[in-house]
């Protein structure tokens, strides 16, 4: 009688049939004959099946030939933008610490466009297993020079061979990552001879074990064949990997400190909307209005463009932010565009706020503004030309009353900075001014029942902006009402 036992065969870490793959071929992978990706896929599939982690493994597919890896592995899969797999992996690993995240990346993806991402993730010691396929070329796009292309190696974009004087030296990823403190395990292997593939198999299982034990960041670099683009047969391909590539990229363990590391534990995130709200808004925000709130007032039929200006440090940006927040709390589309740059250093500061019921085109308010809030003379002078003919000016007269030449405008004014100083701190000036905005809106635009709502909306905006401290919120609300009491219109 004969008994049969399968020693080596198709892994259960793969789907039994590749139904996600379009077209009639459901058993083969899409890789070229002899491609190293297939060898590595088999090692990973075997490991996730053997370790019983298929239900919690997430493999991130890179941009490159392996972009379709989720056709094959019987676990979770997600694709990431070029080079961003470590960022996506970080999010996944932090938000779902019970999952095992594999970042599968090629040399173009990891060592070129995404090099900073991988270094930062490594440096943070994210709990990831990174499998880095180094085949010294851009495979998917047809054989361009990669960061890891060898000196002298000819590619489509280095037809005379890579010149280290003009293209620099091949990037040594394992050496670089191993030089960081956080990573626990870094090894370079080659998918060449059976002996080397066995070492790679061991390294992959070790990296995954580290992940399972939550030891942190492991990276296995795999020198891998791209026989199609390098125009090599199997024998030459192995020779290239073992003699030429390994000479520049020596194989071996670059770092292994997993045994001496404790499992990482990080504070778990809070994903309950209510809990987040309570943390962010310790002061109770009024219940607000219904989602469908639409203020029917005329002023809100069309887009409102607001310019705020003053000198740096007067709170121009946060006043703008409060106005935008107010709009946001009443279902407007809002934009808030602070100006940064040299002008902010001691000169005039400004920001643009747009409130609209429709989508906002440009967030920059540089002409035809409906409301100009000027906190000092020089900025008034600079930005007055942006105010619409019938637009409204709100001016802080603490540093002098409104210049004569603007007196033909609709102007609201109050000594905001002086009032703020009386309240104990100049930084309350913006809430005082917010009070003046409220007066202006009540006078000109709001119907009776909206007026009370608008006090509330201003209070909510203040809470939203100063949520961190209860007494700051209280003082700003006080400043708001003082502003409301003191603002006056100086021309009809």
């Amino acid at each position: 009688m004969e008994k049969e036992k399968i020693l080596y065969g198709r892994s259960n870490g793969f789907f039994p049939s590749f139904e996600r793959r379009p077209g009639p071929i459901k058993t083969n992978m899409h890789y070229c004959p002899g491609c190293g990706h297939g060898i590595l896929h088999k090692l990973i599939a075997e490991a996730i099946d053997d370790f019983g982690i298929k239900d919690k493994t997430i493999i991130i597919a890179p941009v490159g030939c392996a972009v379709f890896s989720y056709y094959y592995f019987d676990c979770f899969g997600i694709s990431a933008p070029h080079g961003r797999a470590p960022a996506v992996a970080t999010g996944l690993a932090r938000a779902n610490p019970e999952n095992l995240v594999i970042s599968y990346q090629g040399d173009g993806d990891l060592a070129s466009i995404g090099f900073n991402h991988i270094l930062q993730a490594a440096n943070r010691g994210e709990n990831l297993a990174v499998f880095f396929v180094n085949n010294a070329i851009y495979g998917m796009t047809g054989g361009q020079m990669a960061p890891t292309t060898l000196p002298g190696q000819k590619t489509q974009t280095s037809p005379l061979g890579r010149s280290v004087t003009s293209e620099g030296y091949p990037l040594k990823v394992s050496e670089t990552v191993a030089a960081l403190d956080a990573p626990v395990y870094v090894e370079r292997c080659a998918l060449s001879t059976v002996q080397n593939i066995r070492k790679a198999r061991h390294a992959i299982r070790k990296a995954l074990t580290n992940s399972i034990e939550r030891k942190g960041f492991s990276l296995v670099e795999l020198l891998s064949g791209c026989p199609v683009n390098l125009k090599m047969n199997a024998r030459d391909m192995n020779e290239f990997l073992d003699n030429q590539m390994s000479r520049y990229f020596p194989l071996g363990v670059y770092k292994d400190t997993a045994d001496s590391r404790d499992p990482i534990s990080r504070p778990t995130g809070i994903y309950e909307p209510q809990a987040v709200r309570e943390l962010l808004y310790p002061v109770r925000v009024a219940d607000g209005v219904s989602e469908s709130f639409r203020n029917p007032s005329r002023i809100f039929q069309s887009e409102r463009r607001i310019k705020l200006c003053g000198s740096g440090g007067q709170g121009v940006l946060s006043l703008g932010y409060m106005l935008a927040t107010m709009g946001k709390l009443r279902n407007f589309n809002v934009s808030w565009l602070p100006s940064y740059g040299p002008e902010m250093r001691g000169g005039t500061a400004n920001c643009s706020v747009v409130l609209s019921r429709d989508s906002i085109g440009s967030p920059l308010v540089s002409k035809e503004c409906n409301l100009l809030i000027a906190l000092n003379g020089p900025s008034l002078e600079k930005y007055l030309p942006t105010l619409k003919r019938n637009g409204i000016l709100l001016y802080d007269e603490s540093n002098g009353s409104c210049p004569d030449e603007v007196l033909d405008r609709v102007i609201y004014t109050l000594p905001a900075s002086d009032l703020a100083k009386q309240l104990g701190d100049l930084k309350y000036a913006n809430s005082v001014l917010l009070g003046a905005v409220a007066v202006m809106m009540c006078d000109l635009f709001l119907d009776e029942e909206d007026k009370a709502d608008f006090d509330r909306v201003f209070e909510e905006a203040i809470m939203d902006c100063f949520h961190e401290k209860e007494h700051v919120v209280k003082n700003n609300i006080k400043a708001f009402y003082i502003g409301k009491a003191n603002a006056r219109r100086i021309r009809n």
Partner: protein
Amino acid sequence: MNKKKFEVRIAPDECKGCERCVIACPRNVLKLGTALNKLGFPYAVRTGQECIGCGGCFLTCPEPGAITVVQIESE
């Protein structure tokens, strides 16, 4: 007495004819055939040499299901 032998099996339509298994096998059990499979590739076939079940061909083959190595025990 139990007798163990090993056998390598190739699924013709899963092979892409890359020859990695052929050069990896320590016992020259495999060679590339001349017939083409349904993908249009020549595929690996057995030469008749005895397989020792080392699994090298399976490990080096990039295709998930092209190669199966079995152990056959007869009483």
